[in-house]
């Protein structure tokens, strides 16, 4: 058997693909949560990258081990190693395209789409868990709407409690800066713990030689994913940060940024607690839009919001098509 650095060829390819997926998570997902902090001036881009790298890695290493439930959210219950590899490459390529176009998309949904594509070709319609797909569709509607409502009311509350009651508004903004940094740090921790599995789970499946109900994930693999996320944020994070932080609604201040970040964390928690499917990316875009709406309808760039929604709707079909093409190519080659 051919080996590279002590790994089988398939495992080595899995590691490379996993790192590429982690890089994409850093460039797209992590950039989401740091966007408002950078836009408000609470953090410089370099500080945001340093903080997100630290907290992502901590989240990945300490909390990222629950792999099984997150691999494509179980859309294909029986995954072959080669199917996992095709899915992670296909999902990564789609997220790279979206990031290149500065669009925030859900990496979880792209891996669900890619697994769906592999599943349709590899195991057939009967082998797909359609309940997972229904949850994804529900999340498209639920997450942004809940985010808009929460962001709107939290910012209205802060405006009534603070901004309208003190004369020096800049003082209030200064006071909210550390709160915004704390919120962003926590969101980075949560992303590290939740999303590192999107990159590492397929690698774990490949290394285990197939899907198993109990997959042991070594710490070095989680740290490897954490490093990939940090590199992605450093290299391309600015692209999505600019869209969320500056183009949805202009003039993000620390109070607005805090309202958006706090609301996104709360929406994700409450929806998860109630058993409703929710996407962090969609919730974050929703809360920034909601905070923008608090300043009036004209404060939100509806053209950009429309483009973002179009990318969300395209995530699953395009990632599925990429995965189908890759798996078909593999079938032709062997």
């Amino acid at each position, binding site marked *: 058997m051919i080996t590279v650095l002590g790994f089988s060829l398939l495992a080595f390819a899995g590691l490379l693909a996993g790192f590429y997926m982690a890089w994409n998570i850093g460039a797209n997902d992590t950039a989401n949560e740091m966007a408002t902090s950078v836009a408000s001036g*609470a*953090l410089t881009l370099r*500080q945001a990258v340093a*903080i997100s790298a630290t*907290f992502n890695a*901590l989240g990945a290493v*300490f*909390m990222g*081990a*629950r792999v099984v*439930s997150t691999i494509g959210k179980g859309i294909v219950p029986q995954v072959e190693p080669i199917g996992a590899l095709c899915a992670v490459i296909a999902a990564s390529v789609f997220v790279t395209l979206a990031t290149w176009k500065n669009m925030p998309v859900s990496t979880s949904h792209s891996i669900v789409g890619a697994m769906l594509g592999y599943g349709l070709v590899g195991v057939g319609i009967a082998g797909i868990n359609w309940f997972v797909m229904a949850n994804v569709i529900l999340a498209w509607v639920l997450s942004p709407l809940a985010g808009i409502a929460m962001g709107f009311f939290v910012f209205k509350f*802060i405006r009534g*409690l*603070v901004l309208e*009651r*003190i004369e020096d508004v800049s*003082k*209030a903004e*200064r*006071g*909210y*800066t*550390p*709160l915004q*940094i*704390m*919120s962003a*740090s*926590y969101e980075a*921790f*949560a992303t590290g*713990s*939740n999303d590192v599995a999107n990159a590492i789970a397929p690698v774990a499946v490949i290394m285990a030689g197939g899907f198993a109900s109990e997959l042991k994930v070594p710490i070095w693999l989680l740290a490897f994913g954490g490093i990939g996320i940090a590199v992605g944020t450093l290299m391309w994070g600015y692209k999505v940060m600019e869209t969320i932080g500056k183009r949805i609604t202009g003039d993000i201040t620390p109070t607005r940024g*805090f309202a958006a970040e*706090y609301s996104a*964390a*709360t929406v*994700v*928690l409450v929806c*998860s*607690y109630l058993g409703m499917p929710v996407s962090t990316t969609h919730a974050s875009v929703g809360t920034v839009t909601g905070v923008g709406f608090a300043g009036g309808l004209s404060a939100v760039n509806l053209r950009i919001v429309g483009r973002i929604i179009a990318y969300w709707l395209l995530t699953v079909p395009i990632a599925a098509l990429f995965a189908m093409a890759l798996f078909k190519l593999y079938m032709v080659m062997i």
Partner: protein
Amino acid sequence: MKETMAMITICWISWISIAALATSLMLPSKRFSQWSNRRIMGTSSVIATLVVLIILFILWG
């Protein structure tokens, strides 16, 4: 693990809500301006986050 993360998030949201409320109430005071140095507040907020996460992780990890 999912329950652990939920507990940590609940604690986190409670703690940040209290911090936000305290900040909002302290803003009108004159003393606030004396210690609101951006660099010190930024660094201490990152350290505070780390400490809180470590405590929460020890409690539920």
